[in-house]
């Protein structure tokens, strides 16, 4: 199976071309089948690959040289080690389920084949990113997933917000991409290779100056910040919720945004070699975790709450990686992919049932009419809040444990508080949507079956995925086998740690219950004493406004200045040189007067000039 791993990204690629060229002729159903079948084929091969990896096969690397420039060979290839075998399964599984789910969600949209074409292109790019064996190839796919994200966020391009959001996502993530690109160039400059293996070897052998390792690692992390929506480049992710909900589930919750985390994990040997880089990752992650969670407390759009929760959870993963918790970060990436995709799909079902109403203040009482969705949503909430024995409990526990064991009590404390916040806003969401009485207008529609069973499947790993690590740490041992990375933090984790984390989560749930079900503690009582606090959170710390005033405006001024410069200086030069070319062209076509005599004469004069010019000095001089 491992030698067939290269076929995994190809299925969606074929589907993409089929759908793209057949977009006029395929019906909705046919398009859904093509896309879903391709994703399923990828899933089947990925499952085979993962099974083989689990039974202890060697790492495999297939590559061919693409370009030879003197000594340097640029190769393209695919690599399968435990981390990307795992990613392959996660990506293809969620992609497949989202493909199926989308059939119900996108019904009657009119551009369903195009939608599926984009989804397939995304799946191809993401799978290609995951198996990339070198940085250049990774970068190409990295950009490709960015393009797909742009296309899908702006899928409803007739909505101005969607158009705006797509643009914002593209521009903001580009800032991070530049970091990654610089890292790639630096790594190539110092190690002479773009392959991950030789780069790690060169770093380990001390061929790269220590401060350069730090710079490369930090620049890679800048790329990850952009893609994974970490502070301060997180602003695009909540806006990206303007895209269709299945897209939010696949790209902006489970897979693409996790690519940043994956990138850091993939290049982890670089980070391990640089304490400064690790600190950066840990602190940025921790700050993002609590920062986004606090914004999530007061949002009223169901998808935005989930989006901030995604940002916050990605912060968790970064926090784990920064605390040397390689396995913990990957573990949380996996469980988060499952439960967050589940939550988004369930939110999508709610949105469909309420005829595209997304404001939670106009929901309520959905449990009575849609208990199925309610259960699924509840499972997702319990998992993300870290209530045992749901999957989130185990992974969050490992994340916190690695922070504690790495000697970062501050980061640990932030993580616990963020866990409390998470539990609170998730259950606030749950209670507002599913309990109480319906506060909206109109009737509540039904949800198609094809949307329900993908959620049912996702619910299984959302509940049970934690047990790969308990009672024995099977998962982290498998993941770190042969990589030279530590499976778990040294020493034993104190027993009070999981208890504390669980208590924090339960406190959050209880508070939400008290505020929104029992109403013993009305929300107004909390916000009134500190209205500025509430406003601050409600407006997301005014980050967008700060960027608009502090970054965009100066850039506009700079732009205006440069435009003047461009208009009068650069374009003058351009016009001047274009004028030269035009003049040459005019002379050339003037000689081209149609007379054969002239033609022969020009040729002859040319020859004579050539002979004289080249030989006169030699023969007569």
């Amino acid at each position, binding site marked *: 199976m491992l030698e067939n791993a290269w076929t995994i990204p190809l299925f969606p690629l074929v589907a993409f071309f089929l759908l793209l060229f057949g977009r006029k002729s395929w019906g909705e159903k046919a398009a859904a089948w093509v896309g879903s079948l391709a994703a399923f084929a990828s899933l089947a091969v990925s499952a085979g690959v993962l099974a083989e990896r689990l039974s202890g096969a060697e790492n495999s690397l297939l590559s061919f*040289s*693409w*370009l*030879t420039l003197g000594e340097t060979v640029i190769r393209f290839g695919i690599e399968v080690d435990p981390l990307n075998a795992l990613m392959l399964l996660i990506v293809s599984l969620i992609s497949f389920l989202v493909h199926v789910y989308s059939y119900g969600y996108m019904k009657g949209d009119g551009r369903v084949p195009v939608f599926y074409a984009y989804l397939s292109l995304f799946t191809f790019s993401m799978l290609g990113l995951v198996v990339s064996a070198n940085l250049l190839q990774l970068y190409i796919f990295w950009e490709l997933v960015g393009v797909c994200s742009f296309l899908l966020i702006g899928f409803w391009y007739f909505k101005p917000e969607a158009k705006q959001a797509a643009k914002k996502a593209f521009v903001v993530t580009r800032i991070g991409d530049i970091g990654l690109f610089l890292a790639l160039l630096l790594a190539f400059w110092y190690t002479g290779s773009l392959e991950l293996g030789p780069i790690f070897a060169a770093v380990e052998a001390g061929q790269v100056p220590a401060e350069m390792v730090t710079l490369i690692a930090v620049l890679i992390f800048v790329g990850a910040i952009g893609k994974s929506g970490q502070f301060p480049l997180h602003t695009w992710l909540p806006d990206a919720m303007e895209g269709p909900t299945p897209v939010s589930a696949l790209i902006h919750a489970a897979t693409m945004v996790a690519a940043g985390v994956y990138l850091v994990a993939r290049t982890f040997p670089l980070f391990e070699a640089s304490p400064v880089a690790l600190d950066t990752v840990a602190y940025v992650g921790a700050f993002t975790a609590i920062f986004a969670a606090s914004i999530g407390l007061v949002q009223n759009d169901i998808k935005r709450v989930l989006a901030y929760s995604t940002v916050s959870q990605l912060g968790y993963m970064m926090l784990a990686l920064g605390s040397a918790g390689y396995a913990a970060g990957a573990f949380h990436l996996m469980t988060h992919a499952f439960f967050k995709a589940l939550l988004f799909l369930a939110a999508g079902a709610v949105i469909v049932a309420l005829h595209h109403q997304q404001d939670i203040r106009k929901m309520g009482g959905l449990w009575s009419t849609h208990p199925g969705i309610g259960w699924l949503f509840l499972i997702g909430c319990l998992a993300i809040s870290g209530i045992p024995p749901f999957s989130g409990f185990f992974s969050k526990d490992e994340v916190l444990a690695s922070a504690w064991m790495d000697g970062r009590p501050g980061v640990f404390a932030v993580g616990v508080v963020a866990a409390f916040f998470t539990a609170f806003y998730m259950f606030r969401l749950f209670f507002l949507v599913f309990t109480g009485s319906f506060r909206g207008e109109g009737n509540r529609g039904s949800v198609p079956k094809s949307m329900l069973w993908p959620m049912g499947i996702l619910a299984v790993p959302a509940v049970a995925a934690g047990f790969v690590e308990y009672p024995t740490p099977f998962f982290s041992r498998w993941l770190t086998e042969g990589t030279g990375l530590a499976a778990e933090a040294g020493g034993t984790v104190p027993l009070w740690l999981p208890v504390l984390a669980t208590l924090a989560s339960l406190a959050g749930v209880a508070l939400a219950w008290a505020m929104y079900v029992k109403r013993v503690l009305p929300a107004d009582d909390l916000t009134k004493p500190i209205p500025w606090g509430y406003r601050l959170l409600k407006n997301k710390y005014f980050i967008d406004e700060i960027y608009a005033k502090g970054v965009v405006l100066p850039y506009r001024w700079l732009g205006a200045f440069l435009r003047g410069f461009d208009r009068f200086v650069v374009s003058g030069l351009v016009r001047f040189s274009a004028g030269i*070319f*035009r003049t*040459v*062209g*005019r002379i*050339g*076509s003037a*000689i*081209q007067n*149609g007379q*054969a005599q*002239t*033609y*022969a004469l*020009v*040729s002859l*004069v*040319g*020859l004579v000039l*050539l*002979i004289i*010019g*080249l*030989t006169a000095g*030699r*023969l007569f001089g």
Partner: protein
Amino acid sequence: MEKYLLDYNWTVMAPELIIAGAAALLSIIDLLMKEKQDKRVLASLGFVAVLGALYFTVSRFGQQPYEILGDTYRIDDFGLVFKTLLLTGTALVLAVSLQEAKRKEITAQGEYYYLLLTALLGGMILTSSADLITLFVGLELLSISSYILAGIRKRRTDSNEAAWKYVVLGGVSSAFILYGMSFVYGLAGTTNLYTAQERMAEAMGNGMESFVYLSLFLMLFGFGFKVASAPFHMWVPDVYQGAPTPVTTFLAVVSKTAAFALMIRVILGGYLFLFNSRTAEGLELLTTALLVLAGLSMVIGNTVALRQFNNKRLMAYSSIAHAGYTLVPLATLGPMLFESTVYYLTAYLLMTLGAFTVIGIVERNAGTGDISAFAGLSRRSPLTAAAMTIFLISLSGIPVTAGFFGKFYILINAVATQHFWIAAIMLATTVVSYFYYFGIVRMMYFRPPVLEGKVKVPPASALVIAVAMIGTVVLGITPQWALEQLGEVNWAAALSPLNGGAPPAQ
């Protein structure tokens, strides 16, 4: 030692014999057919013959070089590579011609098909000649067939004008080549290229340099004319515009490739001693002369193209510019001379053939050869527009297409041999070329269509476009693979004389 005709291993000439036989056969069948009969069956016969010749050419790869007919004709890998290109190009041109003939554009159909074959035969002889006489015969066979082809629409004045100019100016260039060859014979007393080379090297040492250089420069006139490089390019726009589109395609692709084979063969075969000369003065002279031609072609081709509004005229100037690029590896004697030249010619063949095929379709549909015929093509035939865009992107040398890597390897040649000024001209004029190539793209995508309705693409043309497009993209994605394949060819055999091909003495 006397050698008899039957002593030779004639199978090595199978491709040439097939084409010659097919041309003769077609002319006889044409005689027997009625005036009004549909003659497209001839095209199919010709097509089959070309494929057969292609088969024999390809199957000959990797074998020892062989000389035949008193060492005047040699079959080596160098010739085989070029023959493969010529045959492929002709096969595709024949496929496109089918529809051109269908709409009664070309009245003399029978002649059209077998003249294409004789022109091809001339080109094939050019690539394989080891003797000035055979070279000239091949050249004239190619040229004379092309003159008639250019004027095959005999009732149209522009076609006649094109043919007339082509004959006159072609005659001038042939005269120069012949004059140059006569000096070679005068110096060496032989017409065999490799023997002539040895004797001319001696002559160089005996104070006859000026005659050696004179012969070279006189021939350069003719070569420059044939590959359409400036300042011998003046005929190109008029002939390209006046000739029927498939003939233009043939001239731009097959004829030019054959001319490059001729040029490389004569310069590397006949004047190799210049490269080994002790003073390196001769080498510098030759390099500078060729680079001047290359640079002039790039500048003139790309700048005058800016002012063209006729598709075929525009492509004519573009073809002049491309001749300039292709000259660079030969001029600089770069590390990858053969590989990069052939890679570029292959890329050029694919993208130019594709572009001309699309131009033919669009012209016919719009009834005008103006660039405005492309207006709104993306809405009337999105696939054709997409294919044309790929060809134009490749022609302008933007990644990831065959044209990009072709230019890239040529640039490496220029830079590796420290000829930075030609690299600079190449880059600058490439940027200029974006302007006119993207003028067509702008027409296709951003201008509203003038005509209504879909553009009909005949199946044969669609096939040619698809082949060209896939080739352009695949070569652009796997350049290394193509280069490795080309690297395995035994190029050096083209440089050295050989006497081992003769049959053993009886």
